[in-house]
């Protein structure tokens, strides 16, 4: 026995790799010497497929990228296509979209919170968080018929207008949501074991985040005050009043706090959007779509995981000549190898959780 370390295959079938991530860990006892993430088990050739489908058909594919935030993917895609077309979307549609993607952000963060807490051994928050996520899924189901993959947006607007029951249900949800977040925080925020497990684990510096391309709540946890909704507003985000929470240390605990605070802010945005929803004037909720011009556009939104961008190259035909997704979890996952080095095996699980990956989006 000359070899001092053991190689441990974490995944692709492992309870806490959130799908099919495989991490090759080089362990010295419990300490991680080296970690190599191996991805691609869920590759479905999205970008190739998109070149063979029309712009409208591609919308359905986007749902399947990040299936925990399907609305956000729809949203980013239609915004990119609308930018290519150069069309203006009705104000009412813009507001409904904002309400929907913010609800989706809450749903996604709730799921993250539950699974992340479960990864660290606290099993109860998962069930609490899923209760509220269920309410959001019900709202989606009522308007679109779909829960996980609603495909509700269309290039130029929405698949259908919403009625007063949507406004009523959404208001009911936002009224009680803040108190529900208090419940989760009660279980975790001041819990000494939770703090032991998350404080000073996976610390990121600002420079590290920027250089590695890390965006979204992780970057904000490291203290970078950057949110595309504020810095480059789209779809009337400039109309809404909300704060961008930032952290100081960029550790797992800060990432947790960021997402908790973001959920509260999102609930505020949803509330403002449904309160200020312009009345329908009877005109369709969808702008007219003309011929697709030749050209190329890149549009990105702040998805629950970070900067989600679509880069479309059009040659004027019915399908895009090239459709490129800038997947936030793919880029964020890059930093993992560096973050886990020198930490303990248990911290690997915490750090994978902190990154909030959806493997369907990483592999596309």
């Amino acid at each position, binding site marked *: 026995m000359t070899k001092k370390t053991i190689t441990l295959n974490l995944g692709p079938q492992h309870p806490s790799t959130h799908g099919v991530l495989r991490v090759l860990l080089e362990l010295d006892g*419990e300490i991680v010497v080296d970690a190599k993430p191996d991805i691609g088990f869920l590759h479905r050739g999205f970008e190739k497929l998109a070149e063979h489908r029309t712009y409208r058909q591609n919308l359905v594919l986007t749902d399947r990228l990040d299936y925990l935030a399907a609305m956000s993917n729809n949203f980013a895609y239609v915004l990119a296509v609308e930018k290519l077309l150069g069309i203006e979307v009705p104000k009412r549609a813009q507001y409904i979209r904002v309400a929907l993607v913010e609800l989706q952000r809450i749903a996604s963060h709730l799921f993250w919170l539950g699974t992340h807490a479960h990864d660290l051994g606290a099993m*109860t928050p998962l*069930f609490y968080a899923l209760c509220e996520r269920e309410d959001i899924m019900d709202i989606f189901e009522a308007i679109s018929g779909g829960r996980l993959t609603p495909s509700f947006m269309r290039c130029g607007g929405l698949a259908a207008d919403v009625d007063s029951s949507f406004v009523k249900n959404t208001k009911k949800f936002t009224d009680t949501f803040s108190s529900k977040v208090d419940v989760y925080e009660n279980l975790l925020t001041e819990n000494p074991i939770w703090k032991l497990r998350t404080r000073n684990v996976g610390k990121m510096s600002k420079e590290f985040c920027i250089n590695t391309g890390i965006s979204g709540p992780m970057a904000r946890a490291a203290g970078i005050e950057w949110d595309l909704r504020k810095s480059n507003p789209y779809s009337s985000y400039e109309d809404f009043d909300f704060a961008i929470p930032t952290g100081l240390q960029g550790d797992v605990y800060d990432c947790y706090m960021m997402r908790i605070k973001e959920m509260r802010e999102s609930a505020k945005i949803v509330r403002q959007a449904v309160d200020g929803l312009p009345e329908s004037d009877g005109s369709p909720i969808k702008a007219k779509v003309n011929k697709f011009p030749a050209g190329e556009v890149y549009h990105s939104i702040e998805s629950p995981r970070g900067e989600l961008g679509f880069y479309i190259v059009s040659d004027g035909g019915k399908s895009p000549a090239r459709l490129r997704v800038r997947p936030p979890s793919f880029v964020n996952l890059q930093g993992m190898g560096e973050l886990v080095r020198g930490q303990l095996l248990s911290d690997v699980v915490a750090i994978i959780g902190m990154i909030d990956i959806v493997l369907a989006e990483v592999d596309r």
Partner: protein
Amino acid sequence: MIVDIVLQIVKIIVIFAVILTCVAYLTLMERRCLGFFQVRLGPNRVGPWGLFQPIADGLKLFFKEDMTVLHANKFYFILAPVISFVAVLSCFAVVPFAGNAYIIDIPVAVLYLMAISSMGVYGVLLAGWSSNNKYSAMGGYRATAQMISYEIPLALALVGVLILSGSMSIVDIVNSQNGMWYIVKQPLGFIIFLICILAETNRCPFDLYECENELVAGYQTCYSSMKFGLFYIGEYAHIFLACCLITLFYLGGWNGPVLPALAWFFIKVFFCAFCFIWIRATYPRVRYDQLMNLSWKVVLPLAFLNLIVTAVIKVMF
């Protein structure tokens, strides 16, 4: 003579039947309570309120494919669950349920308990080692370190009780608590005992050697069917044993007003079990190094302090 032996055997069978039934229903209780804590129902389909669920579970485990991993060391692989199971059940030989409901009352019962319950770790270690699987092995290593680290403060905390009662017989210990429970006289010792017994029984927040989020299932990753079943029963029997010990050493055993002794005993035991489940539903898991730090840097010194203070008080008054 023969009548005595037969009686003794009948006693053993009855008591073990009671214990195994309690253990089976402990699993049901855990699942129902967790359901209650987590705003869901838990198993309620098999029989009224899910009361037959443990039987269904047992049948299911029994009919599963019994696998032995190809590269496993077969002898130890099969021996390991047996050791865990037998070690825990043997402990119940000296556990009294009421003033006269016990198999045997030996004068060194506490010593016997400590010795036999420590044997359980061999089951876990052997299982982890013989499976020839990295996750299992890490589970086994963790288990060994954890058991050694927590056995010492556990024993030290118990010595406090022994000093007060002046006996190692459990019946004597319970009887000496007639006026005042030891939880009042030994509050620090009780807390130390509770922490250590949580670690010993591999319960959240110290369920490090089988935590599914890191080690898949730890030492039992490669086990299936009844071999897994034996670990499973052994684990819950260990929890049941832990609750019995807390009751006997700190909560006055079967003493209590109005209700019969046996009822008081089981009320207290299942209350302890409920607290175990409650803790599991509330806390995240600690990390391996934190667990070790807690044991050697916090719990062990406190246990010594408790021992010294108890001894000094006992001598002075």
